[in-house]
């Protein structure tokens, strides 16, 4: 079975030869390809080279565009610091408040260099793996863009104390987010992965979810012309999945490693794909034996779940993770012999 077929079989709840899996090896590809991070996160060809190496070495069923959400902040004018051993991070925001952010020009998804970088990686990878491996366009939903442009504190302040300004900002930025997602789909992405942390009850109160976040997600996701993976973004998701149910085009839910897969499935029902559940940032301190055991537990737990897709959650698999640990995960999944029914 090709990866694309395996993933589609998972979406359709159909038989497959083994469970499909996705790992956040966006960063790790630089190690496999031997590309310095400064180059890796600026040159589409270099990034694609890393992901091709990921595919050849570990064979995940989905490949990711750069897991590089600070690039979206950069597109609005935030400043980013590059590192030798970790993903770039925002060090200075483009604006200090939501009202100031309203005055920022919208980045052009066709010409803004950082957005072009993200899109070009998708074009290269999707052309390379056409009909074989789905490529995921990694984004954030509109409600999670302001933390990249004005910071978490200023966005919380707006959502809590200046709801009209927060709504105005979302009215302005939602079309941008939709345009970018649709451009990525046009570039060859099979799915869009997006976080929605500021619609999560662990982050904001119900009045913000009901009054701002949920309407924003409905508008944005409804206008995206392809399937969406709702990513937990580092927050617990399973206990709060009801807040997200019914959002248009959401085909899969990617939960946190602390979440219960049983609880998540119970809330979601049978239809959507459920993705989880190893914590990627912890893998560098694991051993092949320990991850094998964890994988076996997860796979046994989901043995009867036809729409389960194995995944590593949270941020990137760290560069220091021994390849044997990743290979042990891959081997355990490939030899699982389950999910084929």
């Amino acid at each position: 079975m090709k990866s694309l077929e395996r993933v589609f079989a998972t979406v359709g709840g159909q038989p497959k030869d083994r469970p499909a899996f996705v790992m956040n090896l966006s960063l790790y590809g630089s190690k496999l390809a031997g590309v310095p991070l400064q180059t890796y996160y600026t040159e589409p060809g270099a990034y694609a080279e890393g992901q091709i190496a990921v595919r050849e070495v570990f064979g995940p069923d989905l490949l990711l565009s750069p897991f590089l959400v600070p690039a979206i902040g950069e597109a609005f004018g935030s400043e980013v610091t590059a590192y030798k051993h970790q993903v770039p991070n925002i060090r200075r925001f483009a604006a200090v408040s939501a009202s100031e952010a309203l005055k920022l020009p919208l980045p052009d998804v066709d010409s803004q260099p950082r957005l072009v970088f993200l899109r070009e990686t998708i074009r290269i990878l999707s052309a390379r793996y056409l009909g074989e491996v789905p490529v995921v366009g990694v984004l954030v939903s509109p409600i999670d863009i302001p933390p990249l442009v004005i910071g978490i504190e200023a966005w919380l302040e707006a959502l809590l104390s200046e709801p009209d300004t927060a709504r105005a900002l979302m009215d302005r930025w939602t079309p941008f987010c939709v345009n970018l997602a649709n451009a990525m789909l046009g570039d060859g992405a099979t799915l869009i992965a997006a976080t929605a942390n500021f619609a999560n009850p662990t982050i904001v109160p119900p009045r913000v979810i009901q009054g701002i976040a949920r309407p924003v997600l409905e508008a944005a996701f409804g206008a995206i012309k392809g399937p969406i993976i709702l990513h937990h973004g580092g927050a617990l998701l399973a206990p709060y999945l009801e807040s997200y149910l019914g959002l248009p085009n959401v085909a899969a839910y990617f939960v946190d490693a602390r979440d219960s897969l049983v609880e998540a499935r119970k809330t979601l029902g049978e239809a959507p794909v459920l993705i989880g559940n190893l914590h990627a940032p912890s893998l560098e301190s694991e051993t092949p034996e320990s991850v094998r055991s964890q994988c076996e537990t997860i796979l046994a737990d989901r043995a009867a779940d036809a729409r389960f897709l194995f995944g590593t959650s949270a941020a990137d698999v760290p560069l220091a993770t021994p390849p044997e640990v990743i290979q042990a995960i891959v081997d355990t999944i490939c030899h699982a012999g389950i999910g084929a029914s």
Partner: protein
Amino acid sequence: MSRDWSGELVSCIRGADRVAANALLDDWAKTRSYEEAVTDLLTPALEYFGNLWADKSGETSLAQGYVAAKVAEDLLGRVLAAQEAEGRKIETKHGPVVVGNVEDDYHPLGRKMLVAFLRSAGWEVHDLGVDVPPDVFLDKVQEVDARVVGASAMMFSTAKNVIGIRQEIDRRGLTGRVQLAVGGAVFKLRPELVQEFGGDGTAPTALHAPDLFERLWQRSLSLDPVVK
């Protein structure tokens, strides 16, 4: 029936409503002082939320923590303004301590909450901001003779830079005297990293930081009682 001021403040914070919380405190201060509000209203409310947040089954949000910190900050501002207006000397009860985000970490929210809760508990806090190199932490520690340094990091990749602070403490011969408190999302998720990176302690939430700092301060005194 008397008004349940404390319960109302808890409700305001639970609803993440900073405006209502401040209005409540202003109402209180019409007949009593803002200083009394710290002990009679804010402290019990923060204790309540501290317990709630420590209880993993409790439904709590970042917004509630943020508003609790802002309300503490707002109230302290009013207390200080009142003290200055009366010509009283502003005194802190504990410290000094030094806090900051570790090198390469640009996530200030948790640290700002920490500072608000420490100050509301009477600590003298020297806040160095984000992206603080180890030598800058220790220069300030030695300048103000702090016994506790608080290092905040959100992500695993930056939390490793706590190791540099540990090494700088040891390199300057301050082991034991200077206690290293660490905090941030990554340490909550992976508490084993506290020891692995050389921390002396952590707290489940920013609200619990005053207790942690007090414990570490006492440990410092027991290990090195010399007052410089």
